[in-house]
């Protein structure tokens, strides 16, 4: 749908009434949602929706989401609705949810933007956002680190001893356990999310027990559970590989110097310390960048379970690419810094 050169082009996102994204949370929904007769801009927390006169859809304008309702779209409501209606038969409702379209409005001067500008603008906005210490961003980053950090700590507490045990001892069922571990290392996070969801949901086997220390769905604790399940096989697997890479004679030598079995295992772990740090980095990398499980289990509730990755998904689907890019850059930078810090922590060991 290219516009005339003189036309003003707007990008809008279409939400069908029946498929209003639950990701916005209840309080985000237009107040008179479902009132098909009304048309005009609905103000909600982040978006301004335009309800189709009788079409059962809502249109969110991209440029005006934060300042004021998009008067232009409001003014051209019939036109926008016609465009969207025209598109509608091509796709099923569900496929349409959240799709973005360019719509021509009036004959004003064209203010179209190309993707390159979008990326650049996103980049600058990212810098500005980080620099300004935006409280929303701060909350999201804080929660991301809280969830992934605690999950990583639990993974290390379970995974490092498990990896050492598998690498250093021989027992019945060891091979089976290793196979399971390798499977776990490549497990799709979204399947883990589904599994944890079913377990913790109120009708699930764990959720229905009503035990207070079992976390409820859509809480940070549930996200920690899911991320722990994702990352501990990685920590254990890489630790096992690192421990097995240590000279097998070392254990005998250490025992000959008077080590107890626990001291011998510790000495081997310390000798394999680079590999252990790498296992932690791998575990952390897998969960900080993971969307599927936290989305399913956490629900991406603003201010409560919204983390960087789910926020990127949301902002992208809203068409708010600036914010999405800003969040993406923050995510990248933070992951980089954490890995750098971990490597520096065990510092001089890397000089060989």
């Amino acid at each position, binding site marked *: 749908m290219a516009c005339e050169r003189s036309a003003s082009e707007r990008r809008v996102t279409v939400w069908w009434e029946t498929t209003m994204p639950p990701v916005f949370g209840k309080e985000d929904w237009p107040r008179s949602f479902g009132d098909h007769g009304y048309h005009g801009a609905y103000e909600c927390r982040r978006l301004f929706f335009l309800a189709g006169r009788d079409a059962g859809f809502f249109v969110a304008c991209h440029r005006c989401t934060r300042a004021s309702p998009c008067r232009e779209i409001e003014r051209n409501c019939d036109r926008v609705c016609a465009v969207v209606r025209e598109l509608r038969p091509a796709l099923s409702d569900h496929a349409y949810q959240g799709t973005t379209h360019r719509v021509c409005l009036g004959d004003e001067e064209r203010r179209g933007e190309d993707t390159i500008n979008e990326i650049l603008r996103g980049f600058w906005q990212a810098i500005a956002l980080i620099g300004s210490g935006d409280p929303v961003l701060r909350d999201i980053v804080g929660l991301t680190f809280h969830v992934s950090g605690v999950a990583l700590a639990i993974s290390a507490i379970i995974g490092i001893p498990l990896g050492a045990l598998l690498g250093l001892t021989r027992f019945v069922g060891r091979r089976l356990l290793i196979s399971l571990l390798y499977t776990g290392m490549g497990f799709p996070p979204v399947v883990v999310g589904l599994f944890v969801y079913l377990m913790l949901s109120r009708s699930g086997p764990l959720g229905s027990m009503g035990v207070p220390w079992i976390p409820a769905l859509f809480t940070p604790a549930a996200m920690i559970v899911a991320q722990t399940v994702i990352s501990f096989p990685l920590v254990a697997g890489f630790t096992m590989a690192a421990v097995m890479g240590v000279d097998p004679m*070392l254990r005998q030598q250490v025992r*000959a*110097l*008077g080590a*107890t079995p626990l001291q011998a295992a510790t000495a081997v772990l310390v000798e394999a310390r680079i590999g252990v740090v790498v296992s932690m980095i791998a575990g952390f990398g897998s969960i900080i960048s993971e969307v599927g499980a936290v989305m399913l289990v956490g629900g991406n509730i603003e201010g409560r379970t919204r983390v960087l990755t789910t926020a990127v998904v949301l902002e992208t689907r809203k068409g708010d690419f600036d914010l999405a890019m800003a969040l993406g850059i923050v995510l990248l930078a933070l992951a980089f810094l954490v890995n750098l810090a971990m490597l520096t922590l065990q510092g001089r060991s890397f000089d060989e």
Partner: protein
Amino acid sequence: MSGTLLPSMYELHGVVKSYERRTVLRIAELDVLRGEVLALVGPSGVGKSTLLRLLNFLEAPNEGTLRFQGRAVGPDGAMPLALRRRVTTVFQRPILLNRTVRTNVAFGLDLRRGWRPWSANGRDDRVAEALERVGLNSLERQRARTLSGGEAQRVALARAMVLEPDVLLLDEPTANLDPYNVSLIEDIIRSLNQEKHTTVVLVTHNIFQARRLADRVGLLLDGSLVELAESEAFFDRPRDERTRAFVRGDMVY
């Protein structure tokens, strides 16, 4: 050391060690005397290293009894840590931790200290003294991975000596080294034995080294002790035909 001074450090009676039904060691009778240097010679793969593992209580014998300063370690019995901590082994290959020389030498002391970091009394002095003995006190802060083969083996020796063990077990400690380092290490072993009266059991397939260092020499073949005699008698008047062949150098190994 122990209260009553028995003349024997170790007494072995009918000791058998096998792995997966293959018997690798069968010692009818062997005494290791307090304060001696005992050399065990023989070709590769006759159970010399297995015997050292038994003497270091790293493994238990399948049959027979192994007495250490009067305390018996039965077949497949529990091996008390206390016994293991009075003995230590230096292996053919110096297996050092990827840390500084000082940390390596202090390692055995730190193991004995356990979780009591405040009882570090004299640790650093003892480490310095042990490094002085092997002539490496200038390398205290160097990383162990950067040492040459001879230096690494001397660090391994210092790491064992610093524990002041009752028995020092040496498993072909100079097999991979140049003549200079061999003579250095032999001097260290000799002085340790003479000054600290440490009992030394030396496994080697170098009969010249055995002759230079040992008070008594034993020949192991196919897991059993063929002959055990005073060094002079062993080399000059061997009783067994096989000893004679080994000493002459007829035995291919």
